[in-house]
């Protein structure tokens, strides 16, 4: 086979650097791309990695809750992860005294803006609790490849959570875990914040607490967005104070419905969140007086900021990021009372 003309004998392809740049475009360090918003998933929602259609919720995780895996995890968490995270971010931990009376399983619910949130919360918790805590991780993100699934499961005692709420047969794994005496760490926002501002909670965590009769422990994490936002692979030290603040356990009332309990959970997390700006007492008062701007639907919470924000008026994306990365005051100390 030979060409009558030699015009086609040129080589194809651009530079290797160009090819690599194209491959990396819109992919994270693990080479994964977000599902485009326009892609219709089976649940009608969009937003995860990969197709969102494959069943990633069935990855077996029971092995990670064995004593042997627990021992390995303890070494990894306490010997590697915590020293590194603490050295890099110097977090302030508050409210641990409120957990002293906590016995038995509980569901820890926190706002979520960084991969740093999980190691900080687990590192902050007393060992008697953290050793018995499993972490809900997005099935379509952490359980799409075997290597990552195994690592996530081992290091964080993670289990897959279907954040799009698709119904599948069989008993719920989180309920089984609570039944077996495990506490859970869940992020009811369902995904990391894009701008550091808190968004509305999904109802799964509230429903679980009600059905299992276990308390929810609100946690607010501030400053992780500045330290390690989406797209960053390692934390960086910066001038924004990083605080993990635990709240008082919330016990579901006998007559309380899912929506009410979820609202209470959200309000408590928002109050803890605002405590960083208002101080403890003012945030309590703001919560009691209904002055906290709680996130609704797709509208984020409106934190107290140094620049004005108004309910019902959209805030520019850059301003949200601006506020979330604002350096802390010169003293660097938490403010208990507002001046």
């Amino acid at each position, binding site marked *: 086979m*030979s060409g*009558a*003309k030699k015009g*086609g004998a*040129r080589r194809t392809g651009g530079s290797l650097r160009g090819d690599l740049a*194209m*491959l990396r475009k*819109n992919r994270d360090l693990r080479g994964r791309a977000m599902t*485009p918003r*326009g892609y219709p998933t089976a649940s009608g929602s969009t937003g995860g990695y990969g197709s969102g259609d494959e069943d990633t919720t069935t990855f077996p995780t029971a092995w990670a809750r064995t004593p042997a895996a627990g021992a390995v995890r303890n070494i990894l968490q306490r010997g590697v992860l915590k020293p590194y995270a603490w050295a890099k971010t110097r977090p302030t931990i508050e409210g641990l005294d409120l957990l002293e009376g906590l016995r038995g399983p509980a569901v820890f619910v926190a706002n979520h803006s960084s991969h740093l949130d999980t190691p900080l919360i687990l590192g902050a918790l007393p060992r008697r609790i953290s050793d018995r805590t499993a972490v809900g991780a997005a099935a379509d993100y952490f359980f799409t490849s075997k290597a990552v699934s195994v690592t996530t499961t081992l290091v964080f005692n993670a289990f897959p959570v279907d954040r799009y709420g698709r119904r599948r047969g069989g008993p719920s794994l989180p309920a089984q875990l609570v039944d077996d005496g495990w506490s859970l760490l869940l992020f009811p926002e369902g995904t990391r914040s894009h701008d550091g501002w808190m968004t509305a909670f999904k109802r799964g965590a509230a429903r679980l607490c009600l059905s299992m009769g276990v308390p929810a422990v609100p946690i607010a994490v501030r400053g992780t967005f500045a330290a390690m936002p989406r797209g960053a692979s390692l934390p960086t030290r910066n001038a924004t104070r990083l605080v993990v603040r635990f709240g008082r356990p919330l016990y579901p009332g006998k007559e309380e419905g899912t929506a009410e309990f979820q609202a209470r959970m959200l309000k408590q997390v928002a109050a803890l969140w605002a405590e960083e700006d208002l101080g403890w007492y003012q945030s309590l008062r703001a919560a009691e007086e209904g002055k906290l701007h709680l996130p609704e639907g797709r509208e984020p919470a409106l934190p107290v900021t140094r620049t004005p924000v108004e309910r019902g008026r959209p805030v520019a994306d850059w301003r949200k990021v601006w506020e979330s990365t604002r350096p802390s005051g010169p003293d660097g100390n938490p403010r208990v009372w507002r001046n």
Partner: protein
Amino acid sequence: MSRPGFVLEVDERTPPLLVHEGENFRLERLPHGSRVIYPPDSLPGIKDLDGAIRRALLNPHGMDPLPELLTPGMRLTIVFDDLSLPLPSMRSPDVRQRIIEQVLEFAAAKGVDDVELIAANALHRRMTPAELKHIVGERVFRSFFPKHLTNHDAEDRENLVHLGNTHEGEDVEINRRAAESDLVVYVNITSTAMSGGPKSVAVGLASYRSLRHHHNVHTLQHSRSFNDPPNSAMHHSYHRMADLLGGHVKIFTIETTLNNDTFPSAARFLNKREWEWNYADQATYLATRRGNGLLKPAMRRRLWHKTEAPYGVTGVHAGAPSEVHPLTLKNVHRQQLTEVDGQADVAVYGLPYIGPYNVNSVMNPILVMSLGLGYFFNLYVNKPIVREGGVAIFYHPMPNEFHPVHHPSYIDFYEEILAETTDPAVIEAKYEKQFATDPWYTHLYRKSYAYHGVHPFYMWYWGAHAMQHLGEVIFVGADRKTAARLGFRAASTLNDALELASHTVGTSPSITYQHMPPLTLASVR
């Protein structure tokens, strides 16, 4: 369950998308808001294929079971689609082999001695013995080749028979052996909605005298599209011919459809959506692309043409052609059809290394045109994906390169005719007859492995509807001189192409990219 086809709107999350460009491919960043048409996921193949074939032969539609049609002393002719289907070639055993073997088992059991196998290659080049063997399998090949396993010869006057004219005056002239057989068993693969049905015998076994009635500029300009048979003048002509044929020849057809497993697992990324690529897919993409760039063109081409697809078979239907084909079309639509809302100002297509007429051969510039403006542009039902007067952007290097054995008349068509005019109607009126009856081209078609002298004309007509519909045609990455000879414009990048297109469709055009292969049939509302 396989996921349905869909239209993606490119947003800030969308990773660069794969675009074929001949033997290579690239990742391309389409402007935000562009739409991308994806086909349904590959359907699962039939697990017990031999069982399905047997059931189809024993329970045909509109005819008696095959064994009851077979009698000792009868003349049985088995006709099968040639190597232009499927694309790429199917990994052995080809489904045609599996069907032919079962038909022959029945024929042997019934004591049928007079059996001939004919490849329905019409005016395509003859298949080599190796290519025939790949399709029918070693056992059939050994039993029948060379005397009773042959390529159809559309220029063998003694072995053609004129069966009459349709009411529109169209000549129906086909292979004599088939016409005089007691039973013709046609073994088909329907890769696209244009294939199969009335086309099989009326085209595959026909002569130039017959084919010129539907392979002409007027018919093709009124076939909108030829993948939408009810709206295709070409198919109307096929039907008229098939009706006439039905009065003379008893045809038992077996039609099959394939899924979208177009590439082997080594090139799995080509079958996946870009945001689902894992590291292995990305590494394979990079290695394949870089490897492609390092290989010499001849080696690269050989490598790609050796690639065989692990297709699954999604349907086997047998019986009377008119009853079987609607079932086949349903299966094709199930695998390929994607609903699209509205037309765009600009359509984008990536053209791969293979088309129906360059299997184990070179895709010359005329075949590039035919693949783009003919085959890909016409992969729609209802309306084209691009509005009338819009712009089509194709990706292909379009080298000025021809296979001298397979495409001799193409070289002269390119050098002599396209230098004069690119208007299909003028070309048809002025030059077709000369090429179609040229004794040297006829000799090469019959004795060598050349496409018929008229074949490049048909390829040019294939694009006539698109040429009429479009305001501008731009080839990204194409050889500029070659593109200019064909009457098209060349651009280095998509941005350059959009800049060129802005003179026709403005600076903010709507863009639709039909993501292929695997094949996607756009149903445009």
